[in-house]
């Protein structure tokens, strides 16, 4: 059951990160004609990878005064401003094609994650309902 809860936590983090990515992209698109505006991006997958690598070696905490080793690294999406890709005279670096691609990817990813979460709840429910037989 511990693994179950842990995976749920990762799924929750991922859903929120993808939703934030959609929001940041909407902000970029809203500012496509704003002079000197620099696009923002959400960094999340790299952090998850890093946390996963660190979690490969992890210490179990069997006592409340144990210090956590591995696993407990904080994974939170970071919003960064991109300043290096300006190619317009007004100093704005929003590339509408790129934003559309990010938007489409976020939508698909969110749908996939939501499906996994729903499937897990279905599994949980069937485990509960079949238990009495």
């Amino acid at each position: 059951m511990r693994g179950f809860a842990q995976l749920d936590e990762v799924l929750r983090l991922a859903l929120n990160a993808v939703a934030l990515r959609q929001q940041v992209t909407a902000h970029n698109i809203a500012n496509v004609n704003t002079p000197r505006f620099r696009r923002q991006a959400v960094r999340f997958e790299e952090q998850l990878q890093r946390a996963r690598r660190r979690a490969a070696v992890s210490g179990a905490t069997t006592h409340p005064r144990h210090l956590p080793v591995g696993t407990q690294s904080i994974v939170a999406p970071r919003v960064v401003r991109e300043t290096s890709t300006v190619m317009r005279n007004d100093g704005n670096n929003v590339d509408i094609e790129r934003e559309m691609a990010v938007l489409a990817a976020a939508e698909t990813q969110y749908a996939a994650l939501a499906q996994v979460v729903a499937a897990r709840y279905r599994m949980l429910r069937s485990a509960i309902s079949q238990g009495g037989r």
Partner: protein
Amino acid sequence: MLHTFAISASGMTAERLRMDTIANNLANANTTRAADGGPYRRQVPVFAARETRVPGRPGRFTGAGVRVVGIHHDSSPPRLVYDPHHPDADADGYVAMPNVDVVREMVDLITASRAYEANVTAFNTAKNMAMRALDIGRA
């Protein structure tokens, strides 16, 4: 999630205002008697990114869409057209016409229209994602 709708809506409002301004510029492309006396002057909306008031820590998202700072007048000189019979012609027979370039306005119109559509797409994406989130509860 609901915040996203407001962001996209601000983008749509701004682009709509730009379209209104362009329509006004085109309608007055030949107006020689504006409210302030001289020929009509081209109007330009000025946009700025809107941020939430809360000072965000680095890495936090504080964007809140776009806002229109104001509508400014294009300060370029009026177009002089030789038309001695025009009631507004000066002593040399030249009429000061608005500094509206119709071709430029058309280009801006297409840009505004496409940007509006992009905001609609972002809005629909947010809506689809919200519906997916609701589906989890129905599982």
